[in-house]
């Protein structure tokens, strides 16, 4: 099993004696793309923090490329939710993206190469023209894309996104998915989301997190499965087709 990128075995994690994750097994392979779904408090973010080495399991084992997560976290590009940022922080868009290159030297100075990579990453999210703007002057969706660019600038092997679509409009969301599909050729993509109807064509697997972790191929994502997990009837909102006079297109 040399090829496994992320390997989790018998993992248990509790917060103040309340079990958050129980007996988790998970393997993520190179080339994988998966969405992580589940109810609030189900443990989605905790699972990500464990993979990043920000939290440690009470029991069980977690390996990223065969090592402790802390040792390999530099290979993971991470896009946190943008809402946590101080809106008054005086920093340019390019400087935020450059942070993706921080770990490359002891002093953290950015080389010309680092800045080029950052600029290319910004171009990848269609924000190259705004690189000198203050981060605080951007809209919510634009900031989200800057954080994605920052994660790309890290040039990792795994990209983890925590609810990146929360503040994106329909068009930006589609652009994001197109970009993720392209990136998936070289990177593993894991994306936490609340929106269950996201573009199934892109993601190969669904990781359902509700204290326990179950993995399904995307095609199995049915109303029944979701009802089991969320515990009540819910309406699925599909984003992959339009409400237009021509009618709906189902696949």
């Amino acid at each position: 099993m040399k090829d496994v990128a992320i390997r989790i075995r018998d993992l248990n994690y509790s917060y103040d004696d309340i079990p958050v994750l129980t007996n988790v097994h998970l393997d993520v392979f190179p080339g994988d793309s998966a969405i992580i779904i589940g109810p609030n408090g189900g443990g989605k973010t905790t699972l990500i923090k464990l993979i990043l080495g920000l939290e440690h399991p009470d029991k069980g084992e977690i390996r990223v490329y065969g090592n402790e997560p802390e040792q390999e976290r530099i290979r993971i590009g991470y896009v946190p939710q943008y809402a946590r940022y101080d809106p008054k922080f005086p920093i340019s868009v390019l400087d935020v993206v450059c942070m993706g290159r921080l770990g490359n030297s002891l002093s953290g100075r950015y080389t010309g190469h680092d800045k080029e990579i950052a600029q290319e990453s910004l171009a990848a999210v269609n924000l190259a023209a705004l690189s000198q703007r203050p981060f605080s002057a951007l809209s919510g969706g634009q900031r989200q894309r800057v954080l994605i660019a920052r994660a790309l600038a890290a040039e990792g092997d795994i990209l983890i996104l925590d609810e990146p679509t929360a503040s994106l409009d329909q068009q930006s969301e589609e652009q994001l998915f197109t970009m993720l599909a392209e990136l998936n050729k070289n990177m593993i993509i894991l994306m936490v989301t609340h929106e269950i109807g996201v573009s199934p064509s892109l993601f190969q697997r669904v990781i359902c997190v509700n204290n326990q972790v179950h993995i399904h191929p995307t095609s199995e994502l049915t109303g029944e499965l979701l009802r089991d997990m969320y515990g009540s009837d819910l309406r699925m909102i599909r984003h992959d087709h339009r409400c237009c006079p021509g009618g709906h297109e189902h696949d």
Partner: protein
Amino acid sequence: MIELWDALTDPDLPFLRYALITGLLASISFGIIGTFVVVRRITYIAGAISHCVLAGIGGGLYLQNVVGIPWITPVRGAVLVALLAALLLAQVSKNGGQREDSIIGALWAGGMSIGFLFIAVTPGYFDPMSYLFGNILLISKNDIYFVIILDCAILAVVGIFYNKLVALCFDEEYTQLRGVHTRWLYLLLLCLTALTIVLLVRIVGIIMVIALLTLPAAIAGTMASGIRQLMFIATLLSGLFIVSGLGVSFSLDLPSGPVIILIATNCYLLSLGFGKKWRKKTERNNSLC
């Protein structure tokens, strides 16, 4: 103004010169560290450290005069206690931070109480007012050396680790994920803050430290578009407040600490009004392009 110039050049009044030189040189430390304190939002941590400094001053006086350890001066006691407080606060923020504000409160009041008690049991008369509100008469030639060393240390650390420090303030978790030892870096930042605070206590006194540390950076924050610019403007402003405050206090024969702070506070209030206008204007310009 002429009187002030005469006083500055009068060889019998060295304290005013020392105060002015110390204040101007210290502006570099104040501007740079004040910027980090403001953008990282650790004003209350700075407040707690500054109030703890009284414990160091009192302890220093006691150990020097009662126990008879000559090398423990009030200033050395202040440095030691400020660094200890920084160490403790860095540790608290590491462990979850839920009770951080309670611990800040405890250090804040506890430090002052210890200081007052030490001063009370030390025979002889030591006026706590000069520590609380600052007294330029206390500034000596040694303070100038202290300022120069601190300025150099801060410029060196910030010069080398600038990007990491900015990233730490912007997004600590992400910075840690890029392989930066954020705990050590934060501790380093707090220790530099502690040393800057000891210096500030000499100039404006314990109670008003937070004002001179944060107001220049807060005013600069209304117009700066980057951290470097913010530091630069904050340094200029704090120099301006100290010089004008010393001048006014000398001409009107008023205590210098409160005068400096009052000038800073008024400028801050003015900047809130102007800052809004300025921001609107730049936003309009931005939306046009």
